[in-house]
């Protein structure tokens, strides 16, 4: 079932995901992690991908890089189909797309020195001259705000979470990639450090001319860095649209639910008794039709029978819902 994505940004998309399906077996059953997701990311933009645990957003991120092979669908990067690629050509492609993970300390080999870790991508890419490598490593470490001479000879466990994340960002930048997938890059960090890293990512994006796919479960964080946001639930897209617009006037009930559930640091805003009902179903047996219907206050028989398609609700804003909060355009 194709979730068609009718809109096309004015610039040609750097990344185009077409009807991606990712499943994997666990025990005797299958987890339907991603069930037919299509999206586009234009050059130079940041697409935020938000959803709660189990929605498949991390799996989608990894599937884009072919770290987890999709069952069907295509991933087109700069026009080239990554899903068919193997071996050397895939490895070359991977140097243009980088990944930053949630746990910064676990992302670094505990037995290797920082200098080696950051130089690793250069070695793999075939930069033979050690002086040149050293120079690039120094450059990228300074760019992320770390003093190279103090950092290069040390081991990861000597650094804090925030510093490790900076090192991971440096490693992702050293090959001068075009696209970076950030998989929950700040969730494991303290509040005051989060802000530092988010600012750093924005800075690096401008400086290096990057395109980002920013995956997170925290809406406020996603909104802060994204131009457009896509909301996922249990393997499917619920809504996609420009950040401001989406949060100001969400069309999909799940988006509205997420927004309303955010604790607001303002004592005058009394948290309303939440309308969230129940728990997300298991990805091993997702509900028929619209997957959100078991928790949706607006669900009816049609939602159970028919899978909703992404439709335009407002300029550039699409939602997959039979009873959206704003009438369809």
């Amino acid at each position: 079932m194709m979730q068609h994505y009718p809109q096309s940004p004015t610039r040609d998309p750097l990344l185009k995901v077409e009807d991606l399906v990712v499943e994997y077996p666990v025990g005797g059953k299958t987890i339907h992690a991603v069930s037919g997701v299509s999206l586009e990311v234009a050059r130079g933009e940041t697409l935020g991908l938000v959803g709660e645990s189990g929605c498949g957003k991390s799996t989608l991120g990894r599937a884009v890089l072919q770290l987890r092979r999709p069952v069907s669908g295509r991933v087109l990067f700069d026009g080239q189909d990554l899903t068919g690629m193997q071996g050397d050509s895939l490895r070359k492609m991977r140097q243009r797309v980088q990944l930053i993970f949630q746990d910064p300390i676990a992302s670094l080999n505990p037995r290797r020195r920082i200098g080696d870790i950051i130089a690793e991508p250069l070695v793999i890419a075939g930069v033979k001259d050690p002086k040149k490598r050293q120079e690039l490593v120094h450059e990228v470490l300074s760019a992320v705000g770390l003093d190279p001479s103090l950092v290069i000879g040390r081991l990861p466990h000597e650094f804090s979470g925030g510093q490790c994340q900076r090192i991971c960002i440096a490693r992702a930048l050293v090959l001068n990639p075009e696209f970076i997938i950030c998989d929950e890059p700040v969730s494991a960090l303290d509040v005051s450090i989060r802000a530092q890293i988010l600012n750093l990512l924005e800075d690096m994006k401008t400086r290096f001319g990057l395109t980002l796919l920013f995956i997170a479960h925290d809406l406020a964080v996603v909104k802060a860095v994204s131009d457009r946001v896509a909301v996922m639930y249990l393997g499917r897209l619920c809504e996609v649209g420009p950040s401001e617009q989406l949060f100001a006037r969400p069309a999909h009930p799940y988006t509205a639910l997420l927004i309303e559930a955010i604790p607001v640091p303002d004592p005058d805003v009394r948290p309303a008794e939440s309308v969230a009902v129940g728990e997300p179903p298991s990805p091993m047996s997702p509900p028929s039709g619209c997957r959100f219907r078991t928790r949706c206050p607006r669900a009816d028989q049609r939602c159970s029978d028919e899978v909703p398609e992404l439709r335009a609700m407002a300029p550039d804003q699409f939602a997959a819902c039979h009873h959206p909060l704003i009438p369809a355009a």
Partner: protein
Amino acid sequence: MATLELSLNEDVAVTPVRRVRRLGPLFWAAVTWTVFILAAAAFAGVLPLPSPTDMDMLERRMPMSGLHWLGTDGLGRDELARLIHGARISLTVGLCAPVIGVTIGGALGMLAGYFRGRFESLVVGSMDVLLAFPPLILALAVTAYLGQSLFNLTCILGVLGIPAFMRVARAATLTLARREFVIAAEALGATHARILLRELLPNVFLPLLAFFLLGVAVTIVVEGALSFLGLGVPPPISSWGSMIGEGRESLEVAPRLAFIPAITMFLTVLSFNLVGDTLRALTDPRQGAL
């Protein structure tokens, strides 16, 4: 304006934590003994010792004296010389057999843990089959068939050790292969070989080393047991095990003939265990802060 950690300088200078674990006297005693016994075995040829095979029937079972520091055995051979040459044998088998185990078993385990799937099932399955054989019986059968020799003994003990090392390497690899830093390497375009050698091996190396030292200890004992039964190294080569076996006959008259090699073996095995354990605990990298 991004807030950069330009004030990082003092932070980082303060951070490095060299956890100096107090190496107690026990550790140093173990190290001393290990070094001593290894050196003695290595330099046995140049030490001013009487030959271990020189029999002097007039001097049988003589107590400790200036001429024979540890006395003589039932056939008039110098006990000290026999002990040190025995150390050679025991340590040679003790060190070489686990080397076979750690290289083959370690490699198989890492590959199994990394690639998973049918290859893993195959490896684990065959190791299980090997483990199912009673080890001593298998050793006996092989030596009976191929003949008793130092080389055969080392090989069979080495092969018997492979499943255990495979298990250790596989377990370590399984926990590591799912960690983000390995996925990160893959995302960077590293080949499998590179990931195995540069990312996984440095982390799997230490548990394997600790297990290796344990394996040395165990092999010394197993070799000793086989030699005690007369099924290990063939005479006239003697190891600690065969010395204990021979000493059995003189237990009433000269108990030291059995006990001295036994105590030496005990101390050596204990020392290897202590050193191995301490090394492993020392080099465990601390993950994260406090």
